[in-house]
């Protein structure tokens, strides 16, 4: 908890005497810290600068830890990693102007992936607002489309209620990022502090309890289906409903497919789990989508990378869509039975309305569509490390219990396809925005949020070079993170598209980089290079045995591709398969 402030005692006691509740005269900076403490914040990720110097002046006395990053964008993504690993809102802070604009990508990332986050930015002193002052940007204007809501605080008295409201909005309904911009003047001014206990927002009432009529319609559709499928999304974890979901699946016997962000909401090792859908989903999953007569989407939006061309999406299916955000219903895909509500509440209402069933013929049909040739081929290990093997070995070594973050690209898809997620909130990846650089900072946030769990960051050599400056943060905080760079010497995913869809015109995708062992040495951490398949397992074991950050360089076949792939604009059933395994098509 916070250390008691030293106050001008006369003011403090008179203020205390005149009110029932204890209220203290504090500076805006202290009020900001107190408010964050009141929200239970234990860690904030940030970077100081002119407009927040008074705030940073109060930080050493605050009851939470500040983690100094090396670039504000990674503060935002570390906050996201923290939020995704803990389920609590992530908090980041930055100065005005360039500090604030550096947060934008992180806010957009959190917005698209519905991650609860609160960003505090300093603003120039009030009399200078609107005059193009030094380091002034209109950050509330800039972030308007990438935040759930944002505020420019105008009075020191408003700081506490605004922060209260910001946390409420960030964490309730469909979670998202909220930005609070506070002019420097207000950090210095004083006000009586008391933290409000309620938030009154007339225009904000998320619907978490579903309309029973819709729940019954959903149950009726399920009862009539012969080939039902559940599409499981991130919302199940956001609503902390993995237990309800498991019960529901085991009761109804309906097979489950996952969106990229839905991985982990239900054990992939469960017999009813089929695997990931969409652009790099499994063949049998996309085939099942094509054939199902009922699709129950729980807590996922119909993102285009998941649906493929919407005209060819689940053409035979009646669509039941459960989402807490009414605007998602019918936005991208026609919906037959929309159900607005919190995933957990909907599942609890739905469970008594459904019957225990098994769909043997249907699951047999799906299983028969598995790409067996591919699975067999995966067992044959070439001399140089197969990306699949690296991912599987990491999963095996950590017993599937580790938190895994990724960057964006081929390595991200290989990890999604082959890790096998059995636990919620252990799979942390940038889905909606596809933010390169995400892997390392999100691992930092995740490790700080869950120091009890093993953390792996699987990162491409391109993305690593976007945020490798955060190695310094790992060292500074002595974080036990294993960084696995999947090094193909290419911006691999872009190269793959150029390979498949642009006649191998490899334009600007060859990417060199530093010698990673030497880089590790420069940061005073262990570096390990792996060039051969046989070295994978011992290297992983060595990394796991070392306390503190380890940087691993897995040198893989430069032109390995992610298979299968749905070409852009095609429907999910028009998947391309690796030439050697295409015969199963």
């Amino acid at each position, binding site marked *: 908890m916070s250390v008691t402030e030293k106050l001008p005692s006369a003011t403090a006691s008179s203020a205390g005497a005149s009110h029932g509740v204890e209220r203290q005269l504090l500076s805006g900076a202290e009020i900001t810290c107190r408010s964050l403490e009141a929200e239970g914040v234990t860690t904030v990720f940030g970077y100081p600068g002119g407009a927040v110097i008074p705030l940073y002046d109060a930080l050493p006395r605050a009851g939470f830890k500040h983690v100094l990053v090396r670039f504000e964008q990674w503060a935002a993504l570390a906050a996201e990693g923290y939020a995704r690993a803990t389920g609590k809102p992530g908090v980041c802070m930055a100065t005005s102007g360039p500090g604030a604009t550096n947060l934008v990508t992180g806010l957009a990332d959190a917005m698209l992936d519905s991650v609860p986050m609160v960003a505090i930015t300093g603003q120039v002193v009030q009399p200078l607002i609107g005059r193009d002052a030094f380091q002034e940007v209109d950050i509330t204007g800039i972030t308007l489309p990438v935040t759930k809501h944002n505020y420019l605080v105008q009075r020191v008295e408003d700081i506490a209620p605004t922060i209260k409201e910001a946390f409420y909005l960030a964490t309730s309904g469909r979670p998202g990022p909220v930005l609070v911009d506070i002019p420097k003047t207000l950090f210095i001014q004083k006000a009586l502090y008391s933290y409000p206990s309620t938030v009154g927002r007339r225009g904000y009432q998320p*619907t978490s*309890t579903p*309309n029973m009529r819709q729940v019954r319609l959903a149950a009726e559709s399920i009862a009539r289906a012969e080939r039902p499928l559940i599409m499981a999304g991130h919302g199940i974890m956001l609503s902390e409903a993995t237990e309800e979901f498991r019960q529901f699946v085991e009761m109804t016997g309906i097979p489950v497919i996952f969106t990229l962000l839905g991985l982990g909401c239900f054990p992939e090792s469960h017999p009813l789990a089929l695997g990931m859908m969409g652009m790099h989903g499994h063949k049998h999953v996309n085939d099942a989508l094509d054939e199902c007569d009922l699709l129950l989407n729980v807590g996922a939006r119909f993102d285009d990378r998941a649906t493929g061309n919407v005209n060819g999406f689940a053409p035979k299916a009646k669509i039941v869509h459960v989402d807490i955000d009414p*605007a998602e219903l019918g*936005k991208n895909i026609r919906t037959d*039975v929309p*159900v*607005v509500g919190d995933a957990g509440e909907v599942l609890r209402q739905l469970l008594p309305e459904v019957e225990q069933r098994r769909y043997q013929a249907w699951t047999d049909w799906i299983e028969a569509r598995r790409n067996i040739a591919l699975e067999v081929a995966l067992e044959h290990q070439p001399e140089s490390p197969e990306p699949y093997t690296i991912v599987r070995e990491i999963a095996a070594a950590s017993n599937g219990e580790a938190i895994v973050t990724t960057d964006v690209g081929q390595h991200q898809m290989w990890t999604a396809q082959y890790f096998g997620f059995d636990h919620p909130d252990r799979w942390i990846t940038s889905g909606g925005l596809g933010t390169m650089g995400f892997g390392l900072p999100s691992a930092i946030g995740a490790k700080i949020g869950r120091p009890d769990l093993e953390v792996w960051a699987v990162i491409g050599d391109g993305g690593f070079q976007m945020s490798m400056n955060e190695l310094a943060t790992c060292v500074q905080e002595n974080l036990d993170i294993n960084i696995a760079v999947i090094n193909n010497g290419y911006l691999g995913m872009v190269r793959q598209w150029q390979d498949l869809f642009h006649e191998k015109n490899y334009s600007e995708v060859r990417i060199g980089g530093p010698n990673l062992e030497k880089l590790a040495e420069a940061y005073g951490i262990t570096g390990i290079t792996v060039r051969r398949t046989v070295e994978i397992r011992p290297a992983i074991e060595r990394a796991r045995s070392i306390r503190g950050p380890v940087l691993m360089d897995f040198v893989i076949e430069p032109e390995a591709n992610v298979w299968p792939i749905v070409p852009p604009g095609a429907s999910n059933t028009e998947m391309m398969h690796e030439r050697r395994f295409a015969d199963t098509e």
Partner: protein
Amino acid sequence: MKKRHTLVVLVEDHPGVLNRVVSLMRRRSFNIDSITVGHSEQPGVSRMTLVVVGRDDEVEQVGKQLYKLMEVLKVQDLTEANAVSHELAMVKVAAKAQHRAEILQVAQIFDAKVVDATPSSLLIEAVGSEDRIDNLLTMLKGFGIRELVRTGAVAMARGAQATAIKDGRAERETVIVANGSAGMAT
């Protein structure tokens, strides 16, 4: 089928709320035909009239997206309702002496008022439906329109019932989704 929809949007009277609404419309590629904002009967609540063109499902999406803004308290589509939708126009018409009588006659037909006059011009103010204003302008065009301003529509449903926020709380009672089933309670 695309058609013109008239939406009444009640919003909290906070700084920047117009910006939020307009920015939302732009980034979601919803076309605004016209937008007007002003006070409502309730203190602290502003009333916007938005005219948008789109298919029914697109306009329904507009409403749902608007509801995601914290300041938005109520969205009502008046298109199907029996509503009055009017705008105000001011036209400065070239009015040579020999045309003056004719212009005044046109103004009279359209219940328009002459609010200023000079030896060479008349400033005419008209209130009415968009069509009516369009017709007035067609009639005046021949004389030479020097300047024109139109406010865009403001609209209100006929009858005793009001577009208001019950017991001071935002309402999102029923939003019709896709096939016409109720998607939202509260």
